[in-house]
């Protein structure tokens, strides 16, 4: 279609008016182009909108990277597991932690900024992102800060009803910061008495892991104050065989599987005060020399009741070594049902929660692999997922 001269002319004028408008805007906080004068629009045959995502699919994966050694700029990548196309990206701050909403509408980052990049005034925030627009839609300042550490999944969690986000804090006093994510309001700190991390246990309660191998369970009220604090019995030997922080937790079914360095599985019911079931072992006869290891090393697929664990051959203190295989266990029979050899050794892994689950695994060379979680068949891989991807999240986990 021929372009009319008049449209081109107004485009030109629009160009200059828009740049002029930028002069005025330069010192203001960014806002959506609604502030642009109408003439600013460049007339084109095609529109040029911003893409809005559909409701997130359970087969998408959210990959969090702290971006070593540029730790002040973390990043979340969103990929479609079928084809590994980029759906979008979110920029975060220093050692950000991510939390996905149960209703899929939000992704929150608990993150830290300095006013001049890596210097100046520190500000800790929980930022809410709309999962369809990927716009930041709200921010809550965490006045007591947060736990600064290479990102671990259970540094932050969401209560069962999705109302409260709990962000672990060690400043160096141990506490959980309570944020009402409906009102986007900071409520206060829950003293964890030296216990760490945040595991969801209900609408107004949360559990932490204590250094001597027991759970602390805190119930709190709508003002963010603790109303009840319970301390469990030690269920593992924190000296000789600690459990990994990256337990496989499935929030909807309130079921968790905590794995020890040596390969013991502790099934935990996270419905109220955690109840630890009878432990069983990943390795059986002939599995000598194999150990669980990596970073995010375990995932649970609730529909099929399958536990997935990154395993490698190695000696003691190789608990951070990348996995060579993913072992799949039926948690009811407590038996291994499959061994998937990973095309590339991976330090973090998760599975989607749909009926034909995908298994996502990332390597220390920033490659994302996708396998059929049931058969272990490789479905694809993608190199260059930033430079240091660490954590994987899927909807409904």
């Amino acid at each position, binding site marked *: 279609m021929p372009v009319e001269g008049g449209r081109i002319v107004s485009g030109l004028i629009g160009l200059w*008016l828009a740049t002029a408008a930028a002069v005025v805007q330069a010192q203001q906080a*960014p806002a959506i182009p609604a502030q642009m004068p109408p003439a600013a629009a*460049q007339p*084109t045959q095609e529109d*040029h909108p911003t893409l809005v995502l559909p409701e997130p699919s359970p087969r998408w994966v959210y990959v969090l990277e702290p971006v070593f050694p540029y730790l002040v700029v973390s990043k979340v990548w969103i990929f479609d597991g079928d084809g590994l196309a980029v759906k*979008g990206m979110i920029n975060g701050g220093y050692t950000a932690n991510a939390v996905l909403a149960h209703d899929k509408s939000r992704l929150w980052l608990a993150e830290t900024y300095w006013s001049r990049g890596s210097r100046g005034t520190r500000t800790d925030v929980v930022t809410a*992102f709309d999962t369809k*627009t*990927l716009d930041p839609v709200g921010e809550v300042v965490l006045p007591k800060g947060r736990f600064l550490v290479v990102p671990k999944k259970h540094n932050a969690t969401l209560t069962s009803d999705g109302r409260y986000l709990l962000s672990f804090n060690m400043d160096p006093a141990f506490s959980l910061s309570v944020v009402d994510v409906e009102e986007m309001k900071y409520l206060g700190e829950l003293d964890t008495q030296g216990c760490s991390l945040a595991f969801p246990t209900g609408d107004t309660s949360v559990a932490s892991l204590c250094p001597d191998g027991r759970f602390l369970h805190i119930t709190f009220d709508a003002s963010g104050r603790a109303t009840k604090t319970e301390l469990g019995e030690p269920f593992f030997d924190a000296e000789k065989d600690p459990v990994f922080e990256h337990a496989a937790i499935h929030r909807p079914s309130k079921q968790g599987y905590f794995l020890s360095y040596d390969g013991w599985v502790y099934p935990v019911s996270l419905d109220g005060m955690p109840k630890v079931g009878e432990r069983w072992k990943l390795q059986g006869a002939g599995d000598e020399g194999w150990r669980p290891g990596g970073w995010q090393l375990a995932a649970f697929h609730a529909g099929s009741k399958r536990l997935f664990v990154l395993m490698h051959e190695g000696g003691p203190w190789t608990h951070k070594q990348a996995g060579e295989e993913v072992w799949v266990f039926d948690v009811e029979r407590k038996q291994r049902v499959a061994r998937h050899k990973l095309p590339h050794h991976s330090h973090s892994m998760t599975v989607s929660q749909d009926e034909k689950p995908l298994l996502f695994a990332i390597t220390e060379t920033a490659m994302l692999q996708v396998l059929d979680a049931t058969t272990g068949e490789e479905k694809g891989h993608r190199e260059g997922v930033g430079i240091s991807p660490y954590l994987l999240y899927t909807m409904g986990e």
Partner: protein
Amino acid sequence: MILDAFDRMMESAARQLAQRSSRRSILARLGTVLAGGAILPLLPVDKSGRAKLAHANEFAKTAQTKDPTQCNYWRYCSSDGYLCECCGGTMNKCPPGSYASPTSWIGTCINPDDGQAYLIAYQDCCGKDSCGLCPCLGTEGEMPSYRPELNNDIIWCFGAPSMVYHCSSQVLIGKA
């Protein structure tokens, strides 16, 4: 990065401008808004406009119309930067959470399917740190930054809600 052949539209546009509107009247209108101070100069454009069209022809020799994630996709004849097509957007939609700069430079690309020349608006998407994927960086016809309308190192997010460059998109204006 980014800024490229803004001048390509000038050959036809300047012709049309001459018919409908005096250059002085546009500058006067701008002057009102800016209250003094030179902004990106409109001139000189004609000579390099012609030079650029020659480059478009050169680009078209190996251009394709099937895979917009490749640097030789036909619309990218003047595109410099990370392709929005690889970053969660498309050639004419910004990735979620990033926003098009309403300002743009314009190129003339030849579609090898019909052999016709089209005007393309290279409107950057801004508001997130660089996407980092699918860099397509051309230097044909590229000039130093004291000729900003022809320089591709500039963060060309003027007028967008943020001056943080995310990726480059390529929007169809129409036939040249």
